[in-house]
């Protein structure tokens, strides 16, 4: 995390190509933008130029969806080098990835696939996060994905697993409230105690998004679609969360059925007001240090229906 930049982050928005001009022109207090770096890992041209133009006016966050940190394949060194070059170019305030995997034998699945939270996964993730942080020379945040399956073999609850990972690797956490809400609904647990179980000191960023009932299964299965406004249930959890944690940079993700920029700004203003009510002020965060406090091993946007494809539409011909 870039200490200087992150200090001023209030409520931000996921940046869509159709909104580049409006994003550049907007001057709301605390506003920042997040993109998937995969859509900008190119050698030149408009994708980079537009990102740099936004960056000249607002802080940026790079939210990766393809690192496959928990996958069987070792991280792609070329991908990491490209990401490092983009970080060097746009100097993001935040860099984040997911507790997930998406690559096997060199093939890529555009999704955030679930892991079994066991010792093998912890050791693997710790080593790879260390590798990424070492190369980027910065602390990254790891996000809790949405869950749709009850898997056997977990040795940790998700929050405990992520807290342990944060302690051992020195990484921070990106707490997606909608993902906890969707997972709690799908797997049958109370979301609030889970939100409370995340280490407050490790939470560097919060995500909010909308969800939908599955077309086939209805309310029985919620889909983290990012294709609607944030639900009231998620807003209530968020409000309680920031009253408990204090203010954290908060992003509203929207990847489908994208409304006008002005509508997104209104939704974002609600988050900003919540942050200000919770005492939002320039945020001080400890700089990244390798390893963190190693303890004994004792004891994982998500944009359903299109993880990173959202940003592909709308590029001017």
């Amino acid at each position, binding site marked *: 995390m870039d200490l200087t930049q992150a200090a001023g982050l209030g409520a931000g928005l996921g940046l869509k190509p159709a909104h580049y001009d409006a994003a550049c022109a907007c001057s709301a207090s605390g506003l920042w933008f997040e993109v998937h770096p*995969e*859509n900008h*890992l*190119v*050698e*030149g*041209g*408009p*994708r980079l*130029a537009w990102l740099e133009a936004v960056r000249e006016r607002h802080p940026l966050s790079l939210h990766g969806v*393809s690192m*496959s940190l*928990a996958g*069987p394949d070792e991280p*792609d060194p070329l*991908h990491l080098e490209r990401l490092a070059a983009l970080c060097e170019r746009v100097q993001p305030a935040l860099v984040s990835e997911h507790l997930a*995997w998406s*690559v*096997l034998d*060199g*093939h*890529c*699945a*555009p*999704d955030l*696939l*679930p*892991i*079994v939270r*066991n*010792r*093998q*996964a912890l050791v*693997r993730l710790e080593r790879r996060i260390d590798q990424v942080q070492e190369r980027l020379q910065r602390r990254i945040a790891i996000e809790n994905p949405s*869950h*749709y*399956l*009850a*898997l*056997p*073999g977990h*040795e940790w609850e998700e929050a405990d697993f992520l807290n342990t990972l944060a302690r051992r690797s020195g990484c921070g956490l990106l707490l997606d409230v909608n993902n906890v809400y969707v997972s709690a609904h*799908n797997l049958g647990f109370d979301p609030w105690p889970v939100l409370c179980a995340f280490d407050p000191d490790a939470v560097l960023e919060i995500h909010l998004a909308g969800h939908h009932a*599955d077309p*086939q*299964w209805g309310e*029985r*299965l919620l*889909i983290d679609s990012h294709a609607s406004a944030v639900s009231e249930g998620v807003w209530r959890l968020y409000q309680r969360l920031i009253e408990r944690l204090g203010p954290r940079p908060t992003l509203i993700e929207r990847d489908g059925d994208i409304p006008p920029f002005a509508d997104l700004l209104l939704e974002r203003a609600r988050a900003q007001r919540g942050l200000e009510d919770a005492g939002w002020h320039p945020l001080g965060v400890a700089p990244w240090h390798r390893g963190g406090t190693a303890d004994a091993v004792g004891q994982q946007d998500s944009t*359903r*229906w*299109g*993880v*990173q*494809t959202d940003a*592909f*539409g709308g*590029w*001017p*011909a």
Partner: protein
Amino acid sequence: MKPQLDLNGFQHTFWAALWAPEPAPASAETLPEWQTQPGWQVYRNTVLKGCVDALQANFPAVTTLVGEACFRACALDYVHAHPPRDRRLLCYGDGFPDFLGRCAALVSLPYLPGVARLDWLWNQSHSAAEAPRLWPEDLGGLAAVDLAALRLPLHPATRWAWFADLPIGSLWRAAREHWDDPNPPHWQGDGLLFTRTQDGAVQWQPLSQAAAALLDACARGLPLGVALEQTLEVALRVAPQTDPDAGTNPAPGPDPAQTLHALLSLGVFCRPSVHSPLCPEYPA
């Protein structure tokens, strides 16, 4: 003590089910329990839809020509045969043009692979590196002998294709420019040139066979004198043909110098290295 679940074993099982051509019936007795849960299909659907969405975004002219439903059906076949190998979905589909040429359902549309190739070239131009351009006036002070020996590097964003038999450039333009009448103005071979403007937008224009020959020769690293000779040969060979796009064509006539000037004016070349007579340091 319960044995630890092997993470790699789980992931390989998950992956195989994810990419299976057809989903296994939830009633199958040999399935892992998690594959019988309603949520399992979310992963499979998301992955396949994400890949198809990426192809549709990367091949908009093909989508326009065949319609969304047909495109997505063909794309799904491609996804199963060729899952992405690059984490950047904007780079997904390099084999898609050839794949379309092998689709039995599309055999009546022989121009589709070419149209797909133009979509792909547009993508490449859009994402190519920046480089200083070479303009016509930059060659103004050169002696003829130096000019003939010059090897002109292409700008990274320059892409082109010539199609000998079909009006694929026109068909692509009709789709991308949303012509009211999508039928090309002629039914003969044509070509298309992609460059990027100073402000970064990809622009395209019809390309003559002679201009394509000049670009091909420069791409092979031939000295400009040799490249222009080859251009002239092509221009003389095709000169009897009527060029319906002559009004906007960067190389309308048989004069290779005009062709070169038109291409230079579009910024298709970049400044050569220090070992060129165009550089102040030359000769070193």
